[in-house]
């Protein structure tokens, strides 16, 4: 046999290929003795002959640069077109002339009839990439690999060699000889959806005649998530038959989408499906909100098989924290609170064959909108600052820290349920206490204090410097209180107010997502928040939020001056 006619006719008739161009069918190197003959015959089912006889299609046999044109109607009857004049070798190229009105016959084949002639070698691409005459059908081949994987060749919808695995292909048109395409005839191919009744590990597929970019094979899992995608390589040469084979893999594949490039005619053949690690089907609930219970159940992919579970394991997506199940490891279900995204794996044996599979599990953050850090604010009384300040810096200060929030058992939780995040720590509330101490130097800023008495009776300018009056010592107190934040809620742009607000703005999301094995340090989180909130607060000394400006402090105080005479 030279070629299967179905796909060849489709391509020859498919736009936008150029009419009149030649579509290569086959090349045969023949050796014959004098008088030997070569004939071409188009062989089909009885139902095909009517359309074949009405076709205007033409096939060309090219020998020694000479073309012999044979109509399809002639070919149906069989046409001897070459006789050996001597003992020799010849090369015969067969072409289909494109753009003709061609029938679409699923089962017709081009057959070369030889008399006193034998084949040296040949190139018959329309018979498949391995140039064999037959393509295995679904039930023809199957096997269990040493690794416990099962492979099936699938050529059409229906049951496969693997018990429990059936295939649905939509749309589907049987091209014969194990190949299929999207429609009965002609024109650009449409997207084909392939569904598997059970998840498969990988799919290997060969595409026929991809001309343009955009022919893709996309694998999806049961939940619709993308598993893998591959692009077939086109040759950019309509009329030149090429093949490309690609594999999508990743496990859990339940749907395959075969998308054709725009205005391209393609067909498919040799779909090989591996039912491998998915001898076990692992189904997990979720996604869940952090700290909710997730449950994963393992079952044999083939319901008729027997699963024996030997181990369960969890690995977090971030930081790669690992948890091995330690109790009831043979259970087919693993449940427990989940606080981190990750992957759950189960291992065991299916009908005695070792098998492993895994499934992704994920958590969504809890809604902590409006959740605020606990606060602690102190104003020392009396002030801890000296009564005789030597600089402005001794008139007030603020201490800021993020400490461990009280009632630790209420917010610091450790999971102890034997589940995927067993012995993981997570936060049930904000675990940081925003602590501030704002001290205004009321030892100095007081009526009749030494500092008070040290100031000018009235505001005075000396050598161009304006010095404050004693009365301003008292007027300065509320300015200083607003700057340091003796009442943080009253002075939101004070040092303490900014610090507390900054802690509130970041503590919720960060404590919400803090989770991991018990043994990780949580003080780094508090320290980081403290550092950045304090930096925000201290930046106020250099920006416009609530600094003491030349407007709010229109004069300078006199300070105690150190004598260095005896210093």
């Amino acid at each position, binding site marked *: 046999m030279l070629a299967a006619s179905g796909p060849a006719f489709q391509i020859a008739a498919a736009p936008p290929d150029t009419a009149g161009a030649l579509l290569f069918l086959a090349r045969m190197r023949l050796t014959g003795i004098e008088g030997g003959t070569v004939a071409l015959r188009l062989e089909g089912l009885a139902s095909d002959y009517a359309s074949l006889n009405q076709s205007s299609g033409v096939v060309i046999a090219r020998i020694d640069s000479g073309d012999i044109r044979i109509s399809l109607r002639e070919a149906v009857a069989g046409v001897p077109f070459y006789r050996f004049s001597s003992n020799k070798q010849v090369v015969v190229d067969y072409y289909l002339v494109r753009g003709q009105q061609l029938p679409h016959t699923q089962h017709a084949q081009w057959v070369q009839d030889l008399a006193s002639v034998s084949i040296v070698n040949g190139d018959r691409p329309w018979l498949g990439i391995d140039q064999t005459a037959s393509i295995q059908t679904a039930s023809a081949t199957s096997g269990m690999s040493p690794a416990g994987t099962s492979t099936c060749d699938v050529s059409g919808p229906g049951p496969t060699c693997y018990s429990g695995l059936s295939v649905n292909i939509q749309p589907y048109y049987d091209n014969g000889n194990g190949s299929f395409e999207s429609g009965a005839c002609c024109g650009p191919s449409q997207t084909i959806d392939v569904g598997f009744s059970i998840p498969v590990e990988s799919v290997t597929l060969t595409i026929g005649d991809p001309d343009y970019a955009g022919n893709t094979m996309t694998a999806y899992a049961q939940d619709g998530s993308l598993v893998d995608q591959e692009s077939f390589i086109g040759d950019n040469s309509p009329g030149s038959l090429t093949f490309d084979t690609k594999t999508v893999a990743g496990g859990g594949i339940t749907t395959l989408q075969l998308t054709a490039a725009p205005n391209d005619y393609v067909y498919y053949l040799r779909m090989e499906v591996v039912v491998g690690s998915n001898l076990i089907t692992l189904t997990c609930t979720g996604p869940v909100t952090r700290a909710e219970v997730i449950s994963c159940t393992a079952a044999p992919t083939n319901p008729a098989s027997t699963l024996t579970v030997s181990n369960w394991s969890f690995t977090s997506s971030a930081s790669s924290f690992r948890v091995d199940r330690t109790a009831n490891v043979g259970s087919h279900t693993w449940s427990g609170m989940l606080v981190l995204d990750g992957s759950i794996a189960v291992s065991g044996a299916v009908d005695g064959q070792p098998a492993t599979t895994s499934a992704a599990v994920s958590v969504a953050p809890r809604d902590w909108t409006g959740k605020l850090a606990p606060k602690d604010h102190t104003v020392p009384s009396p002030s801890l600052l000296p009564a005789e300040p030597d600089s402005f810096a001794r008139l007030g200060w603020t201490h800021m820290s993020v400490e461990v929030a009280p009632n630790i058992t209420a917010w610091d939780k450790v999971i102890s349920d034997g589940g995927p995040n067993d012995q993981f720590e997570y936060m049930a509330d904000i675990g940081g206490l925003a*602590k501030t101490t704002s001290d205004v130097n009321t030892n100095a800023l007081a009526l009749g204090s030494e500092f008070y008495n040290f100031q000018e009776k009235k505001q005075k300018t000396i050598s161009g410097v304006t010095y404050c009056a004693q009365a301003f010592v008292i007027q300065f107190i509320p300015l200083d209180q607003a700057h340091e934040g003796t009442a943080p809620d009253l002075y939101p742009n004070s040092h303490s107010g900014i610090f507390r607000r900054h802690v509130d703005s970041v503590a919720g999301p960060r404590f919400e997502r803090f989770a991991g094995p018990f*043994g990780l340090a949580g*003080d780094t989180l508090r320290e980081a928040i403290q550092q950045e909130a304090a930096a925000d607060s201290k930046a106020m000394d250099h920006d416009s939020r609530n600094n003491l400006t030349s407007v709010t*402090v229109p004069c300078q105080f006199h300070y105690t001056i150190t*004598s260095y005479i*005896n210093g």
Partner: protein
Amino acid sequence: MRNESIKYIVCALVISGGAGSSAPVGAQTTDCGHLAVSSHASVPTVGDIQSLSRCRDSGAVALVALWTRASTLPSAQQAALRYASADLRDSRIYDALRNVANDATLPATARLGALQVLTSYFDATRKVSMRALANPVGEAVAIVADYNPQVGTAVLPVTLPREYLAQLADLAWEDPDPQVRRGALFLRQQFSFRHPADTPLPAGAISLIAGCGSRVTIQSTADVTVPIDLHIGNAAEMRSYALAPASAASPARVMLSLPPGPIVATVGSRTVATLPIRNAPCHPGQIP
């Protein structure tokens, strides 16, 4: 403008103070000589002690002398001594503080007070309260706004950070006084993960344990939070973890699933553990 006007105030006064000529009529000056004398009183006034920080040379000498008898002073005077000492960063005071902190014959209050001042020497932006040192439950070392200590005439040594963290380790591990041990441990834990390079760790405190397949367990018996960098596969990949304070009796352990290859654990660029071979056996059916 904003706060710059305030800085001008301070600067102008420091300059005028140095010149000794621009003080207003009736300006108050600090007589360092007088303060030095008065500091020898059996109980100097709080104000006199606080004022010593303004005398950059003689004040430091007087403060050092006061630290030798700090434990005999009333609590208000001790607080003033801590305030003035923190306010004048001078290596002579620093040496005195180290001696007081190390002196196991002194009461814990005086020694913790010395540690409080040493902490501000270690990081001038930080302030630890005596309450936190005495009962460090859930406490943190605060960050201070609006605080600018003065610099004494004897400059602090550049080795101070390393010396301070080493002293904390010695006190936390070996001091006979449980209050001092606890206070030192609290400070050590506060700074360990921000200064891992200078934080002493007991030998063998960090270990790496190979498990089946990709499993590796990091274990710490260190008494502080330890930031650990794992260099995997000849440093082709690095991952960082921070393990909580632990002990030999109750180690902190975290099991990981890591790519293949040898692993080197470092803390502050120091190699603390290695795992050159990872061929631990797997149990039957164990997921590698």
